[in-house]
């Protein structure tokens, strides 16, 4: 068939030929794959968020018992001289008894006390942490002794679980820590307004608590520890990373040695984080003798981990600055340094900041290396204010999540999910900050 023949037999534009149909359906299929892929991602996110929020939001509310407590001077200050040293001799056991009696009195007065339940059993509704809280309150304010105060006592973990749906009458029947009778009493007290679920700021501020008192476990030490480490990472990784990137990108000669460094930086970014933990253990703790579990060591290890991320992001940002701007600056007689600091760096700034914040966010969520340098330890005391605090033992948020999940008491599941929520909020805040900074500093050219 000649060309002339073909033009004679051209089909109408209104009918699609087989090739066009095949191409169109291929495109349609590809679009469907894309929608499915995005859908799977969104679904996974929804499942993740709903499971975390569902089990974790409870940690931000806590069951509290409100009851009047008479601080008996005979018990708490037998000598009657209000001497702090003597006051300190009254232990939490004494305060515990005091609280149990106060609770029994309160329920009896309202006519809620079940037949034949012992004082000790009634007192078991109160958390083991509550006597310590009361004792600290009294030691801080000795003039309270002899008066009757309204005390908000932390309820025990099982009671808290009962009101959050974790503990049921059936499970209590099999549980040596709590009896159905106690739960019934708790329900009556709730109906009488003596027990309520209140907001729980202590979850953010409290230090970690032992296995037996999940109700008082909090993230205070972990948040402080993570914040200290982020400060160290920011202070070390940003200047080192930016300086290294500028040197490599703008000044370093192109030779085998710099190629080797480049390859190694790219590889470092892919090194498993636990390897950095081993390195930190060997170098910073065993060799340099820095204290274990300290934010300083944690921060140094995370700095090593974050550096490649920052260097790669910064170099990409520097590369993206159009060479015409460099030419322009050099052309009017700016030195290389002036060119970089007056023109290249300001244009690369949004990219550098984004890279840094993403690196920090990554470091904030990093767990494995911290396990190896002792940050997995149980830390009850807050680290001091910086700079001394950098050497004090501290926990870290992701490690705290890991710690909570290791405990037997199911109440810690709620705590772990709550800690994840806090971690996610921090990460989200950092990412929003990155976006905002990017918008703020972005300039067109």
């Amino acid at each position, binding site marked *: 068939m000649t060309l002339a023949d073909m033009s004679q037999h051209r089909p109408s534009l209104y009918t699609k030929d087989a090739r066009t149909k095949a191409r169109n359906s291929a495109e349609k299929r590809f679009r469907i794959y894309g929608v499915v892929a995005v859908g799977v991602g969104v679904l996974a996110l929804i499942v993740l968020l709903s499971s975390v929020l569902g089990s974790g939001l409870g940690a931000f509310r806590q069951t509290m018992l409100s009851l009047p407590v008479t601080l008996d001077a005979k018990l708490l200050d037998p000598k009657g001289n209000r001497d702090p040293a003597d006051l300190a001799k009254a232990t939490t056991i004494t305060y515990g008894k005091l609280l149990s009696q106060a609770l029994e009195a309160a329920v009896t007065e309202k006519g809620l006390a079940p037949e034949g339940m012992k004082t000790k059993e009634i007192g078991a509704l109160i958390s083991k942490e509550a006597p310590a809280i009361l004792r600290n309150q009294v030691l801080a304010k000795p003039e309270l002794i002899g008066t009757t105060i309204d005390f908000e006592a932390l309820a025990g973990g099982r009671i808290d679980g009962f009101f959050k749906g974790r503990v049921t009458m059936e499970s209590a029947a099999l549980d040596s820590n709590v009896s159905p009778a106690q739960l019934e009493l708790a329900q009556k007290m709730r109906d009488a307004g003596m027990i309520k679920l209140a907001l729980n700021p202590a979850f953010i501020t409290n230090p970690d608590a032992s296995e037996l008192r999940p109700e008082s476990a909090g993230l205070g030490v972990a948040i402080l520890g993570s914040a200290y480490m982020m400060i160290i990472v920011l202070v070390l990784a940003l200047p080192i990373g930016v300086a290294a990137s500028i040197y490599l990108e703008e000044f370093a000669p192109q030779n085998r040695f710099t190629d080797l460094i480049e390859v190694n930086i790219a590889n470092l970014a892919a090194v498993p984080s636990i390897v950095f933990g081993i390195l930190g253990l060997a170098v910073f703790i065993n060799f340099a003798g820095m204290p274990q579990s300290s934010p300083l060591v944690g921060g140094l290890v995370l700095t090593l981990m974050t550096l490649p991320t920052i260097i790669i992001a910064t170099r990409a940002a520097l590369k993206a600055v159009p060479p*015409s701007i460099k030419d322009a600056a050099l*052309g*009017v007689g*700016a030195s290389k340094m002036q060119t970089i600091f007056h023109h290249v760096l300001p244009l690369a700034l949004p990219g550098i900041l984004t890279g840094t914040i993403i690196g920090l966010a990554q470091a904030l969520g990093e767990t494995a290396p911290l396990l190896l340098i002792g940050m997995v330890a149980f830390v009850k005391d807050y680290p001091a204010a910086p700079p001394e605090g950098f050497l004090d033992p501290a926990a870290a948020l992701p490690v705290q999540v890991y710690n909570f999940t290791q405990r037997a008491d199911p109440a810690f599941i709620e705590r772990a999910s709550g800690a994840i929520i806090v971690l996610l909020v921090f990460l989200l805040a950092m990412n929003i900050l990155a976006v905002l900074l990017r918008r703020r500093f972005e300039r067109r050219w």
Partner: protein
Amino acid sequence: MNDMRLTERTVDATDIKISARKVQVFYGTTHAIKDVDVDILDKTVTAFIGPSGCGKSTFLRCINRMNDTIDICRVEGDILLDGEDIYNKKVDPVQLRARVGMVFQKPNPFPKSIYDNVAYGPKIHGLVKNKAELDEVVESALRKAALWNEVKDRLDAPGTGLSGGQQQRLCIARAVATSPEVLLMDEPCSALDPIATAQVEELIDELRENFSVVIVTHSMQQAARVSQRTAFFHLGNLVEFGETGQIFTNPRDPRTESYITGRIG
């Protein structure tokens, strides 16, 4: 080239500003410029013409040592500015570039205000003592670049917001602000429309009063319109160099003739 009366054009200045002798440029193993001898006169517009890749831009960039930024580039031979070898080890290219300004092919204003664009050079070279002096320098540079009347009310506006022709004139103002002795222009009009081109060409002719201007151009008409002397480059060689009128009306080398009549290039 019909109405240009090229032959009547005279070159009044005779002082040699830049003198190049046996200049060779290598990119790695490529020999990009071969044995170029050129004398560029003061207060004159010198045009470099030639087909793409002939080395005219490369040679231009040798004059203010912009080629230093390319690692693999190597320059041999002598280029003298007022009798001093600019490739001497004692010469700091930064100082040299303050005296030999450059305007690039694509307008490349800094992403800053119009004022800051022009003020940048004088500031880094410490040419002014105070804000008032700086204002003066900026104004006179913008006037020399024939841009003052268009931008005097919006000096704080970003330089990148100007039109292409205005941006290029802003770049010329920026180069002029450091009061250089030589102004190098690398195809300054190739990204501009005909009207903006005409404005810039007019400007180049005015700049001749104060500077020695070297312009690389693809357009032979442009070379004929603005320059007093023209150098024709081909394959890295300087084929012919002389008064513009002579080059365009009576070329001595057959290659020059082929090029200006459109047979090569």
